[in-house]
């Protein structure tokens, strides 16, 4: 038998974890063992997992801090909703419509990523971060003022109001400015969410383990050295950025299709930050970590419902403590000392009785 490489084993086991988790959760759902609240979170969890994986491609693998990932989610969500609305009366089934919407959402978001990436990726570090933030806000602002309707004659767009559309019979407004998209047919399902995760993993892991992925990581590790061996750093970063935008767009489309209404303000700076938190907590460049962090942190506020009003406060404290525990040498030493102290105190009485070190002088 051919020996599998370490990477292949890692990748296969990551897929394995996702599939096993899916089977277990699906089993519990069928057995009726999940509360409605948690069941309602299944699609968002899948969406956030794939968003965290795709953002990891930009922030972990390519090493650029992006604060506008929700912007691409938004582009995908609203283009997906428009496509789904346009196809509603086509006689197609729900699943094909959903898949087409996700693909179109991904493609349009990818185009947005490409257009934004070309200028943005000339910048470095914090400046790049603030420009991604700015683009995220611009996208939100524009969609907030976007009016789209569909009728027999096709799609109508406006940036001022929905009044001037003169829709023919059966026509309806799909996106209504700040109100967002309304009357969405809920097509999303948990299974589709898991399919999205698998697809995202497939693309991201495939990218990482190819010559393109190596070039992306090389540009992250040492820009000048990458340049010196013939790697176009800008092109590498653009590739990572665009691929991540496509995946975020698809996730956004699925997300929107899980609700009957969705507004642009849902995809704001805070959502971008939330996804970044998943990535950082899971470990930069650590795909499996992103999956676990996104799943736990999306569920955490739901699980903290018992402490009701305090849940977001607890969430914040947990976040800070986890960051401190993971990164602070002082705190690590402190924790070790406390643990050792407790251990030795527990041991002390026993060691005395057993005639150990401490008991000799008595």
């Amino acid at each position, binding site marked *: 038998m051919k020996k599998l490489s370490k990477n292949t084993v890692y990748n296969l086991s990551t897929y394995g974890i996702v599939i096993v988790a899916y089977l277990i959760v699906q089993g519990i759902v069928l057995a009726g063992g999940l509360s409605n609240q948690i069941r309602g979170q299944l699609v968002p969890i899948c969406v956030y997992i794939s968003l965290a994986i795709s953002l990891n491609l930009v922030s972990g693998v390519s090493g650029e801090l992006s604060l506008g990932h929700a912007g691409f989610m938004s582009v995908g969500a609203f283009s997906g909703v428009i496509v789904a609305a346009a196809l509603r009366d086509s006689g197609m089934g729900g699943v094909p419509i959903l898949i087409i919407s996700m693909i179109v959402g991904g493609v349009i978001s990818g185009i947005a990523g490409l257009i934004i990436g070309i200028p943005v990726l000339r910048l470095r570090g914090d400046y790049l971060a603030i420009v991604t933030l*700015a683009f995220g806000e611009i996208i939100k602002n524009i969609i907030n003022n976007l009016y789209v309707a569909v009728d027999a004659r096709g799609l109508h767009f406006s940036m001022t109001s929905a009044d001037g559309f003169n829709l023919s019979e059966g026509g309806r407004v799909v996106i209504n400015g700040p109100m967002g998209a309304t009357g969405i047919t809920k097509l999303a399902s948990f299974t589709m969410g898991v399919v999205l995760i698998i697809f995202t993993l497939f693309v991201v892991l495939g990218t990482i383990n190819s010559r393109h992925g190596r070039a992306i990581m090389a540009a992250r590790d040492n820009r000048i050295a990458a340049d010196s061996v013939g790697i176009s750093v800008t092109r590498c970063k653009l590739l990572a950025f665009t691929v991540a935008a496509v995946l975020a767009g698809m996730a956004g489309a699925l997300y929107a299709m899980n609700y009957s209404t969705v507004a642009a303000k849902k995809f704001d700076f805070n959502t971008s930050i939330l996804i970044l938190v998943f990535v950082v907590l899971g470990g930069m460049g650590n795909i499996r970590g992103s999956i676990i962090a996104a799943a736990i942190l999306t569920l955490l506020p739901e699980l903290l419902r018992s402490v009701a009003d305090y849940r977001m406060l607890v969430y914040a404290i947990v976040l800070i403590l986890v960051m401190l525990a993971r990164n602070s040498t002082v705190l690590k030493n402190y924790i070790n000392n406390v643990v050792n102290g407790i251990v030795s105190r527990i041991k002390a009485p026993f060691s005395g009785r057993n005639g150990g070190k401490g008991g000799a002088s008595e």
Partner: protein
Amino acid sequence: MSVLNNLIGGLSLGSVYAIIALGYTMVYGIAKMLNFAHGDVIMIGGYMCFCAMQYLGLPPVVGILIAMVVCTVLGVLIESLAYRPLRGAPSLAVLITAIGVSYYLQNAALLIWSSNPKSFTSVVALEPIQLAAGRLTVTGEAIVTIIAAVVIMTALTIFTSRTKMGKAMRAVSEDRGAAQLMGININRTISMTFAIGAALAAIAGVLYCSAYPTLSPTTGSLPGIKAFTAAVFGGIGSIPGAMLGGILLGIIEIFSNAYISTQLSDAIVFAVLIIVLLIKPTGLLGKKIREKV
């Protein structure tokens, strides 16, 4: 005359952004971190002043002082509890911690004051001044805000160039290791920076709430982001840059509100930022860094 009116409005809003941006830029310059919780310190400052005036019936000046004291203590506390243990950790870890602190402050405020917006009584008692036969109106808030920004800017410039602590700050910002070898207490210098930044945030909070008199736990977010943008716009780490960036941002915002579109004014502000950064990648007054090969 409406151009002049808008200009004054822009200067006033820009001055608030500038005061907040000063806090961002000083902390960035010295501690090399993006303190995302800065916007929420503004909100706490607003609430403190509100409580002092509303519940304790104290005069506005005392309210402002209380807000400054509380925020200063808060700033130093946040730094020593959340950020100091992470000195030397990757900058992203610090950033996420700052976000955690921001969530914490917002949710603590939510528990204490609930999500219902409070209506803030302006701390400025001046009547609006009518100029040019009533065609030009200057509100008391605008006057006070602009004066406050100028005074703060001047004081900070003198502080950083003349005083021992100010020089220590500049030294730490230039090269932390070398400053430490010269006997500068890094922790104290960084604490001091946070103290100043937080006190400025308190002032900005009170002024912002006086001009836009609704106060809620998320009040600080948007001006926080805008001021952060302003700091980058001017060249993050640069004190005059923060001032310039803040004022320009305020003017652009008010003008695009008035002449282009109310709904798209945020988009326009951010678009201008992007264009500036593309032309000058380290902001208007930022230093160009050449990487040594």
